[in-house]
């Protein structure tokens, strides 16, 4: 269905179409999510499979040099007039073996150690299985007669063991990729020489990385940065969700161990009564918040943009700047300011001599954050929709005017459906953005007001602010990791709905 069919429907039909397409979109998006995940996995294994394709064939077809490169990396290249490249491959192999022998293997072997004696902070000693790290801490008495750890310096911390395990995992994958590349390269140069051509020299090869293979050069540093500080942390965090890592287990000797799906079960039902109720409560408030925050901003932002962009309105730049100023001031400043303005004994209450509980009563606070979010967000929506408003095809209005439509009818029949159609992806991505809207909640209410019904959180906490509190102030890292995984799943599904829809609206653009 394209835009023309859409505008011809009545308003009621359009709304029901939008709602229907939103909900019918959900299963597709969830399926799409798994499809993308599957594609990535397929791509990854396909990539490996590609490498192995002809792995045996190349070995039996190849000459001595190629065969030798299956054991000694680079041998094939060296014997096929590519000394430099061969040496690089050889160096990779030597470095990898040295890394594994001196470093990597220790951590891989320690990732699941049985029979480790651990004394917890209450002084209870017990033997544990599946522990990350294997050294048993030895306690003794120092010069002052205080109980102390004797082997502190060469003791494992589970954090380091897990971290180096993940790093070793990635290094091993990279090594195998290079290993396969090495056998391919050996075979290809062999074929080249057989065909009577000269293989590239080292210098030509380097030059090639600035021309034909420039993408490799450009992507290396960004990808390494992402691997080290995004991918490794994500894998680490996913692992943490299956351990019992908390702040109590951070000191040397205080190892943590694998607990399977226990943390996931605790979030839903096996934890304390308040703990298992909290996730549902926070999730539903997060969704309610995201819904109101998104639509209030969207509708009011568009109305504001329409008023400012109306043909007869003068001083457009002035009006626009007036509203943009609030968006331009750093968000934490405006939000902390709002917190003071709406505080119990400060700001508005002090000026008017009242005691409205703007941020201290649960219901008030929930309304306040949504209203303040309108103040914070509407200028942004106004900015980003202005461009789209100016792009509405003028002939639509002309024909409407000829048919005698008035301003209100033009808005409800043309402007709004058009914006809704074009901006649905934007709406969904701002919905996802609001699920992750840390700033507004944390700076205004800090998640409060506190309630005994909430586990380590408050009435206005979103999943992300809860995650932040669990990490920074509570040190409940395992639970934070579980929440993080759920936030990811919710955002991923939402983003993929938006992604698929923006593909659709792109096609729509091509028609008009």
């Amino acid at each position: 269905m394209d835009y023309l069919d859409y505008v011809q429907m009545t308003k009621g039909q359009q709304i029901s179409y939008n709602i229907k397409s939103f909900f019918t979109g959900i299963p597709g998006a969830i399926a799409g999510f798994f499809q993308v995940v599957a594609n990535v996995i397929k791509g990854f294994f396909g990539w490996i499979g590609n490498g192995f394709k002809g792995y045996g064939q190349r070995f039996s077809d190849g000459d001595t040099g190629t065969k030798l490169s299956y054991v000694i990396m680079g041998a094939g290249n060296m014997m096929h007039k590519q000394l430099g490249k061969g040496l690089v491959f050889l160096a990779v192999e030597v470095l990898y073996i040295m890394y594994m022998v001196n470093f990597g293997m220790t951590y891989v072997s320690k990732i699941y150690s049985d029979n480790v004696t651990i004394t917890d902070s209450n002084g209870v000693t017990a033997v544990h299985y599946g522990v990350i790290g294997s050294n048993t801490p030895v306690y003794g008495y120092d010069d002052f007669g205080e109980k102390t750890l004797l082997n502190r310096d060469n003791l494992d911390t589970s954090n380091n063991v897990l971290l180096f395990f993940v790093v070793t995992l990635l290094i091993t994958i990279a090594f195998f990729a290079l290993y396969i590349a090495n056998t391919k390269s050996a075979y290809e140069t062999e074929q080249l020489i057989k065909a009577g051509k000269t293989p590239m020299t080292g210098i030509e090869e380097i030059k090639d990385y600035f021309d034909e293979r420039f993408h490799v050069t450009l992507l290396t540093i960004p990808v390494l940065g992402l691997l080290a500080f995004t991918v490794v942390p994500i894998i680490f965090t996913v692992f943490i969700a299956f351990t019992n890592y908390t702040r109590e287990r951070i000191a040397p000797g205080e190892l943590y161990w694998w607990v399977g799906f226990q943390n996931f079960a605790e979030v839903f039902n096996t934890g304390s009564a308040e703990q298992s109720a909290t996730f549902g409560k926070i999730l539903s408030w997060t969704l309610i918040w995201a819904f109101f925050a998104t639509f209030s901003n969207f509708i009011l932002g568009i109305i504001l943009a329409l008023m400012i962009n109306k043909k007869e309105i003068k001083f457009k730049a002035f009006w626009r700047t007036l509203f943009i100023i609030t968006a331009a001031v750093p968000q934490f400043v405006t939000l902390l300011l709002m917190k003071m303005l709406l505080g119990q004994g400060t700001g508005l209450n002090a000026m008017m001599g009242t005691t409205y509980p703007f941020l201290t009563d649960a219901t008030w606070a929930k309304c306040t954050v949504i209203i303040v979010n309108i103040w914070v967000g509407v200028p942004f929506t106004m900015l980003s929709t202005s461009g789209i408003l100016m792009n509405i095809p003028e002939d639509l209005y002309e024909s409407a005017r000829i048919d005698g439509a008035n301003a209100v009818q033009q808005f409800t029949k043309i402007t709004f459906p058009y914006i809704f159609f074009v901006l649905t992806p934007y709406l969904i991505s701002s919905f996802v953005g609001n699920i992750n809207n840390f700033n507004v909640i944390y700076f205004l209410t800090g998640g409060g007001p506190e309630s005994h019904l909430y586990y380590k959180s408050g009435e206005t906490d979103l999943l992300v602010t809860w995650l932040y509190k669990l990490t920074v102030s509570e040190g409940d890292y395992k639970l934070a990791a579980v929440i993080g995984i759920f936030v990811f799943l919710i955002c991923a599904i939402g983003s993929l709905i938006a992604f698929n829809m923006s593909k659709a609206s792109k096609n729509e653009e091509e028609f008009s």
Partner: protein
Amino acid sequence: MNTTNFQNSPQAGYAAKRKAANTAIYIILAVLGVIWLFPIIWLILTSFDGETGAVTRSLIPTNWSFNNYIKLFVQYETDANGNEVQVAADAMQFPYMQWILNTLFVAVCSCVISTLLVLMVSYTFSRLRFKSRKTFLNMGLILGMFPGFMSMVAVYAIMKVLGLTNSLIGLIIVYSAGAGLGYQVAKGFFDTIPHALDEAAKIDGATRHQIFWQIILPLSKPIIVYTALTTFMGPWGDYIFVSYFMDQNPYGWTVARGLYEMIDNKENINEWFKPFCAGAVIIAIPITTLFLIMQRFYVGGMTGGAVKG
């Protein structure tokens, strides 16, 4: 366009109705403008309030003074003899000047690194075609869906191994290492540069390396400015990572952390709320100016990104 004639066509009361509608819009805009600007005006007025304490009894201060601004840079304490002495430059409770310098350092460094990374990635995905391009794009899409601070604990563990916890270098790495993922807007820009340029240069014997540096980048000033400004402004507003990575020593904080701490604590709020306003005004001026410069890029970038996905 001749639609103007049509609009002004004489219909009974039409013009009058139109005028009334416009007047109504002016009134609504003015009212909204006042509401939107009120907190900002309150911030500026309070920063000049000569009375101490967190409570403002009236919007317009009765005593005007610069004391709140001065207090950010020069602080006094009572010494053992009961005299007012100036606090040494390295022992202040809230060293505002140091925060500005810290933030500036972090912002400049991460701006340079991030801009380079973003340009490299977006250029590659926009102009170069290679075998695993689709796989990389998909992986980028998935990685981008993880909430940024979900894996804070792990990043902290890495920084600890590298010995970079509680250091500004660590913050720079955190802000810029993942910058490659924010390639969409810049990629959208590169997509609009005609491919004929590349091809012409190629025929003249230029390598892709030369095309990137000598042909595409000089044409990309708007997107470089946009990327640089957004990445420069990031550290000024981030509270999450500074609050987790830096310890209680106020000399290592950035502006966002410092200003938050000024009014976070009930003991500080009375003494520090008004200096907080002054501090907020000082950093808001340059950041607001940058944002206003940037907004025309912002409009294009947002809508471009939204439609192109």
